[in-house]
């Protein structure tokens, strides 16, 4: 079974702060990590490999530095890593990213593709399903349990608004996974040695035979107009006086609008 796990190197958004004066992000000292949901995707890939045999290939798109994320995945037990890196890929939105990944996955050949449910820097959860559409294969989102996996079909639990569905799919299939699915393993000593020695394949636009109009900024239908800190509410009122006076003023306001 050929298993491809798509991962992303992201800034640890929990560490990002905002400069209150300029409203811009302060990223100094913010570490780059493997997107936390993707660690669960890697673990799921290794689980399936141990169960049914096969190979786990980790795939990422990013700058040359993203190679570190692939080596980390190999240290966890993945067999090989492929880095999609090309200046032509810069500025990709979810459409262009998914298209690029799908080209690479077609070239690799895969029975099961696993992604984290979303990346913590973008929070879109769109790249998995879009990639499946480009590959013309089914996908199942928000997988919280793999109940059974055979050569031709897989049965999983997917989270819904009021519980979960048990869903069966034919293979090939793409899954996006949530944290509940498993506990990602730590890199082993043997894994770390393998990660050091591993040869990471690097593919650019020419390697995946993609049209320049379909990748990077040119292939991205969306664009960011601006980023901003939220504005103040127009009806806001900062109460004045001692704590007791402020509480009294609040009580009066609330009584006035009859909401208590």
């Amino acid at each position, binding site marked *: 079974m050929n298993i491809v796990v798509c991962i992303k190197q992201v800034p640890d*958004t929990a560490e*990002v702060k*905002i400069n*209150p004066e*300029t409203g*811009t*992000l302060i*990223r*100094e000292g913010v570490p780059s990590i493997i997107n936390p949901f993707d660690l669960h995707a890697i673990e799921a890939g290794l689980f399936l490999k141990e169960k049914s045999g096969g190979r786990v290939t980790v795939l990422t798109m990013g*700058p040359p530095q993203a190679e570190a994320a692939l080596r980390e995945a190999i240290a966890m037990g993945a067999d090989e890593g492929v880095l999609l890196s*090309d200046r032509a890929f*810069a500025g990709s*939105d979810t*459409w262009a990213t*998914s*298209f690029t990944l799908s080209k690479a996955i077609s070239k690799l050949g895969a029975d099961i593709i696993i992604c984290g449910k979303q990346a913590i*820097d*973008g*929070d879109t959860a*769109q790249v*998995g399903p*879009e990639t499946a*559409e480009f590959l013309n294969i*089914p996908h199942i989102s*928000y997988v919280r349990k793999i109940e059974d996996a055979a050569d031709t079909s897989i*049965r999983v639990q*997917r*989270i819904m*608004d*009021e*519980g979960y*569905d*048990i*869903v*069966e*799919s034919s293979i090939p299939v793409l899954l996006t996974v949530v944290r509940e699915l498993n506990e990602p393993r730590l890199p082993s000593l043997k894994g770390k040695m393998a990660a050091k020695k591993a040869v990471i394949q690097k593919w650019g636009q020419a390697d995946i035979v993609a049209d320049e109009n379909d990748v990077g*900024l*040119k292939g991205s*239908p*969306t*664009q*960011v*107009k*601006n*980023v*901003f*800190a*939220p*504005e103040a*509410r127009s009806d*806001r*009122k*900062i*109460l004045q006086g001692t704590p007791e006076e*402020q*509480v009294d003023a*609040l009580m009066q306001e609330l*009584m006035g609008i009859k*909401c*208590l």
Partner: protein
Amino acid sequence: MPVIINRDKCTGCEECVASCPVSAIEMKDGKAFINEYCEACMTCLNVCPEGAIIEVQKEARDGTDLKAYKGVWIFAEQRAGKISSIAYELLGIGRKLADDRGTDLSAVLFGATEAAAGELIKWGADRVYLSQDQMLSQFNDEPYSQLLISLIDRHKPEIVLAGATPIGRSFIPRVAARIRTGLTADCTSLQIDKDTGNLLQIRPAFGGNIMATILCPNNRPQMATVRPRVMKRGQYDENRKGEIIAVGADALSCRTKVLETVKEVSDIAVNLQEANIIVSGGRGLGDPKGFSLIQELAELLGGAVGSSRAAVDAGWIPHRHQVGQTGKTVCPTIYIACGISGAVQHLVGMQSSDIIIAINKNPEAPIFNAATFGIVGDLYEVLPLLIRKLKEAKGI
């Protein structure tokens, strides 16, 4: 690159280097240089004191006639035949956008009855595309996306909205991929740009650290998923008339099968999302014991207990109480934020509340920008006072 540096103007001050959230700007020969990290977030544009960073405008793709696309569509999801509340919220914002564009509002409904479609009209739709096909009664990504793709191809709406729910976020990306258009995830605000008529799609970015406005200027339809419990429902009108158009479901295929649907709802999730009043505590509590005060106030008001991410990360309260980007989105009548600084990632989970009361020691805390009423003070002084006075008012 999405942005370029005017090397004549660049003074090498490195302001932009520090501002870039993805380390995409480096210095080369004393001038800024954009590398392949760039995600086109445009943050640096406002930072450069010299105006030396320039956005590269894309040209419209050949062959897409934007004017051929008309009307606002919303996807109305249902589970077991019952229309989800997000559908009514989408009709609320969809009606507003349609009116602003001087166009009409249509809903797309799969696997439900004509009676359900009629409800969508009363809530603001001019037209409902309804497929009653059995294959669509249960949600599966492939037939849902195939049918919506064929409807969009045939009728060419300019805007398509769906809920940012497990259903919407799962199958709508397939539709956008196939149609080759942009899709903006989990929007918390939508407006029409008066100058261009484009849809301004506003959403939290970078883990909810900041807001971003996203455009899809050269492709149609403009597609977005919308966060539940953020948009207000529209007006219900018993006498409102509209048309229901029956849609066939031939030639749909499906390689997934739902074997079983299991209900499993945590009480606290329901409490938080249905509560009229929520009292939330954050890092400012300083101590997990502070939640007993929060709890007391919440009980007195008949409300639920929420928290910020900081309080959850500190281990003071379980994650299921968390409000914000990675927690629940809530929309109560009154939201009382105690010792919560008001990071964007929290604000996006509660800013649609009707009345927001902020209690915080720090007068500079961003929570006061979002608050209807702000009390600057020590919550350990303010909350007991508030509790006492509420008891007095209630005659307890």
